[in-house]
């Protein structure tokens, strides 16, 4: 049997290549995740640990969940002087050049050079009060250069500083935009956001105050990492889910490859049995073949994964410098895990077809291949099981939607999907026939070829079906969530940009300038008057905007206030607002006054919105003090806000924008969707390899038939087209079926998860994207057919006829 085993491995190597590729890709996927996780962990140790690198001790609160008292920390730093480095932050409004003020984080720099953990990029560290170093990213964003002056803080604590250096911070937790000397930092100790929560110490610490504890730097960083790396593990876990999908798809692909291969070799096996090989011997030989393929493919996959992972780390570091990765240690458990998964997948996938091989009697195997039909005992059991799974699954989904239970939804979805897969051999060929009928007589042969072995047809499409279903569900789910989030955001940020001029009314000139600014779709003046509101220290603008719908994203509903009410934006007032919704307050303009009830809202800046009648009650001569702007669809938020800030500054007005927040949220959602699609893409690639593989094997199997067709007058091009049509039919049917199921799942998910969470959500089906998916699948099917079709067309009829 040994010679047989070696000979068949040699003869069939090429046929195993595709199965091996599927295994390699999934193993590599798992290993890459391992390497990257390890890199992220190393990066964290290196970077988060930077502030404590040359320290002997770290002082922090006794309990992990507590924070060290700021006054205690200051006391330690003051006492130890050059041997201590306090870590803290304060949030200060900062003005650079003639840009509008915005909040920036400010942190201290250690007095001793060895304890300065920030990386100096250019210039020098600040040495005395009045000097500052700026983080390079902020310097880039705000065009700050060495030698510039920046103003930190407002009013009494405002300080002008000279920028003497640019630095980079390796530690994300201690990162600030501006760094100053410790004494300078202490200037702002009365600011509400001021805190010092950790102290790195060189040498002896001496008497520890109450509530403080000493940690060794290693221990301290590792503890901190445990917290944060939960996060990294979470991401690794999510990635693993995708790896599991890829692995599942490759099980389907590999199993199908083996069953096609074995079907083709049934005669060989039968012959072996006839010449005296026992069932056991045949089984063993086949198993050893699978094991050899599994070991080789898994080993290759592991190596490819390691190579790819280490190549990806520098790439990620350049693409996303905010989360630098370190030198990853070889993640042995991941490597072993990936290898094992690959081996087990191959062995498992070869198990079923192998069992079928030895069940067939030698004589039966010598007869030509007959199609499976649903009337056999196994066929009936299979259909019954499929029906059972479908019904149970649908029932579970129904219950899940009523009870909003995610667990039931997942169970139901899985059950339905398993049912569909089992129904495959009965369902998929029917769909292929229906689709093929649309092609007319040109597609007849292709259609018949595609369905001639229903089980193989179903198995080939199953892998793509899995991927498309998931992709469609993700696309539809994200479109639905997105629509809901958009709507909520429109409500929370009704006005894109508000220019407010409390002192003087805005001029029509300014309004014109704003309207002419590129990226402005519409701008309206808003009338109002300065008013004293009881409970507020400073006067605020009270405005009315009956025509707010012209610019508001929520259709202007935030500005439709009933007479007798005043709507305030809490976010715009920070936390200094002692008023609560429902309170009644006296609002006074000049000597007129009105009793108004407070209502809440957000997203239009620091003004109280009232009804026109209420404003008329307060003043006879309202003047435009505010301009509300709606940005056009494609406007660049940074540029637009910059331009408008320039106009506002020149006119002495303040600017309040929601655009940048919107853009960030948008981007987050987009990144999320694309990452998921990208990760699913790996599974899709495996599925396509599977289709190409089955087709390639079928082409080998049908070489004689093709030769005969060619002899009868089928041109090369017709042959190629026939095979391409066959592949396209398979992929399009899998895609259409997957799209339907995927949208169905998305709907179930929407009813179960999205609707309870976002009350205004409505189901959105992204038809164009789904169209693209079907199109891509069809093209990919064509692509999968290219190689097999070329190989088939190359054979001359005479050569094909002498094959057997």
């Amino acid at each position, binding site marked *: 049997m040994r010679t047989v085993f070696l000979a068949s491995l040699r003869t069939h190597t090429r046929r195993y290549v595709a199965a091996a590729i599927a295994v390699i890709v999934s193993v590599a996927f798992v290993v890459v995740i391992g390497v990257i996780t390890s890199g992220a962990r190393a990066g964290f140790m290196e970077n988060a640990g930077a502030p404590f690198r040359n320290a002997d001790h770290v002082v922090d609160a006794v309990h992990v969940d507590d924070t060290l008292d700021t006054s205690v920390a200051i006391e330690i730093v003051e006492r130890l002087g050059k041997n201590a480095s306090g870590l803290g932050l304060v949030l200060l409004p900062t003005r650079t050049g003639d840009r509008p003020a915005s909040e920036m984080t400010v942190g201290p720099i250690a007095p001793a050079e060895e304890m300065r953990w920030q990386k100096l990029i250019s210039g020098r560290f600040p040495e005395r009060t009045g000097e500052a170093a700026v983080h390079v990213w902020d310097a880039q964003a705000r065009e700050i250069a060495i030698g510039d002056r920046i103003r930190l803080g407002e009013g009494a604590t405002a300080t002008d500083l000279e920028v003497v250096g640019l630095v980079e911070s390796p530690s994300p937790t201690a990162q600030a935009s501006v760094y100053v000397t410790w004494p300078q930092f202490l200037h702002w100790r009365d600011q509400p956001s001021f805190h010092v929560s950790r102290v790195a110490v060189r040498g002896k610490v001496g008497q520890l105050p109450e509530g403080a504890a000493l940690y060794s730097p290693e221990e301290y960083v590792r503890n901190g990492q445990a917290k944060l790396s939960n996060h990294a593990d979470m991401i690794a876990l999510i990635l693993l889910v995708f790896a599991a999908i890829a692995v599942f798809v490759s099980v389907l692909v590999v199993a199908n490859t083996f069953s096609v291969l074995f079907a083709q070799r049934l005669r060989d096996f039968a012959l072996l049995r006839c010449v005296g090989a026992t069932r056991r011997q045949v089984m063993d030989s086949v198993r050893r073949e699978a094991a050899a393929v599994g070991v080789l493919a898994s080993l290759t996959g592991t190596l490819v994964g390691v190579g790819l992972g280490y190549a990806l780390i520098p790439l990620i570091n350049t693409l996303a410098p905010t989360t630098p990765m370190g030198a990853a240690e070889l993640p042995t458990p991941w490597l072993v895990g990936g290898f094992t998964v690959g081996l087990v997948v191959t062995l498992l996938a070869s198990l079923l077809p192998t069992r079928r091989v030895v069940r067939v009697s030698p004589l039966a195997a010598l007869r*030509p291949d*007959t199609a499976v039909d649903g009337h056999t005992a196994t066929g009936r059991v299979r259909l019954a099981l499929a029906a059972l799974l479908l019904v149970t699954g649908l029932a579970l989904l129904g219950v899940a939607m009523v009870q909003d239970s995610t667990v039931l939804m997942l169970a139901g979805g899985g059950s339905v999907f398993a049912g569909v897969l089992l129904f495959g051999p009965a369902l998929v060929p029917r769909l292929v026939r229906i689709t093929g009928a649309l092609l007319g007589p040109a597609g*007849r042969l292709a259609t018949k070829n595609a369905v001639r072995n229903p089980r193989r047809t179903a198995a080939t499409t199953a892998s793509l079906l899995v991927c498309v279903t998931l992709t469609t569900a993700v696309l539809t789910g994200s479109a639905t969530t997105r629509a809901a989030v958009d709507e909520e955001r429109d409500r929370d940020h009704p006005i894109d940009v508000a220019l407010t001029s409390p002192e003087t009314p805005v001029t029509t000139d300014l309004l014109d300038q704003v309207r002419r600014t590129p990226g402005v779709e519409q701008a309206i003046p808003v009338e109002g008057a300065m008013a004293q509101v009881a409970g507020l220290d400073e006067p605020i603008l009270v405005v009315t905007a009956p025509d707010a719908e012209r610019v508001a994203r929520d259709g202007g509903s935030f500005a439709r206030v009933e007479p007798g009410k005043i709507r305030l934006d809490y976010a715009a007032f920070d936390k200094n607002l002692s008023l609560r919704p429902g309170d009644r307050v006296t609002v006074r303009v000049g000597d007129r006054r009105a009793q108004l009830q407070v209502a809440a809202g957000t997203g239009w800046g620091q003004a109280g919105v009232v009804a026109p009648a209420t404003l008329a009650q307060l003043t006879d001569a309202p003047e435009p003090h505010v301009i509300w702007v709606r940005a056009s669809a494609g406007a660049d938020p940074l540029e637009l806000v910059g331009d408008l800030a320039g106009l506002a500054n020149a006119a002495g007005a303040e600017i309040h924008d929601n655009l940048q927040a919107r853009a960030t949220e948008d981007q987050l959602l987009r990144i999320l969707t694309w990452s998921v699609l990208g990760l699913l893409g790996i599974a899709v690639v495996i599925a396509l390899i599977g289709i190409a593989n089955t087709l390639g094997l079928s082409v080998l199997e049908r070489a004689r038939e093709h030769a005969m*067709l060619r002899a*009868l*007058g089928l041109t090369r*091009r017709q042959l190629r087209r026939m095979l391409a049509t066959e592949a396209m039919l398979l992929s399009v049917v899998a895609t259409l079926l997957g799209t339907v199921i995927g949208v169905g799942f998305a709907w179930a998910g929407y009813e179960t998860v999205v609707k309870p969470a976002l009350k205004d959500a409505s189901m959105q089906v992204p038809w164009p994207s789904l169209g693209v998916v079907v199109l891509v699948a069809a093209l990919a099917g064509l692509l999968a057919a290219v190689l097999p079709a070329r190989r088939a067309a190359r054979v001359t*009829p005479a*050569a094909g*006829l002498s094959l057997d």
Partner: protein
Amino acid sequence: MRTTTQATVAASARDLTKTYGQGDAQVHALRGIDLDLHRGRFTAIMGPSGSGKSTLMHCLAGLDHASGGTVTVAGTDLGSLDDDALTIFRREHIGFVFQSFNLLPMLTAGENIVLPLELGGRRTDDAARERAHMLADILGVADRLGHRPAELSGGQQQRVAIARALITQPDLLFADEPTGNLDSTTSAEVLNHLRRSARELGQTIVMVTHERDAATYADDVVTMQDGRIA
């Protein structure tokens, strides 16, 4: 033989050679064949195994390019045709019956018979359907047209293959060991049908065989030996 006029010659070969492989592994399968095949006649090509019968047939039928010499079928020099033109030429002028695996397993017998028409993009019109029925009648498979090849006996499969070869009214019908897989009774049946096709439909037929009995059904017998006509 060589003196007959063009009008009665369906196909001819002149100094036909075919060489497989290169250097030491070179095999001269055909070493200069001169042959005329006459219209309406049933010719048997005989010879021992490995003598080049199949190779000759492949070259005459345009399934393979010759290494040297010319093949003319229905007045067309096959050497001057590229692959596509040759394929279309086969589709229109040549019919085939092979030893086995003649029929597409996923098509019914009836569909197999009209397959050559369909490959040409022709609609199976009433005339074609009528002809298919007539042929099926003659060949005794009329009641089997709805069955798949797997449900037919070997002899029935070969008769369906003959019907398919005749449907286009080809200038030449090639049969490579059409009875190789059949028992003697069934062989006789199939050979009778071939002979009737030649006699009654005026079909030119070339049959490769190494059975002496089979050759007795033919009008002419060409014997090959070591790549030459003996």
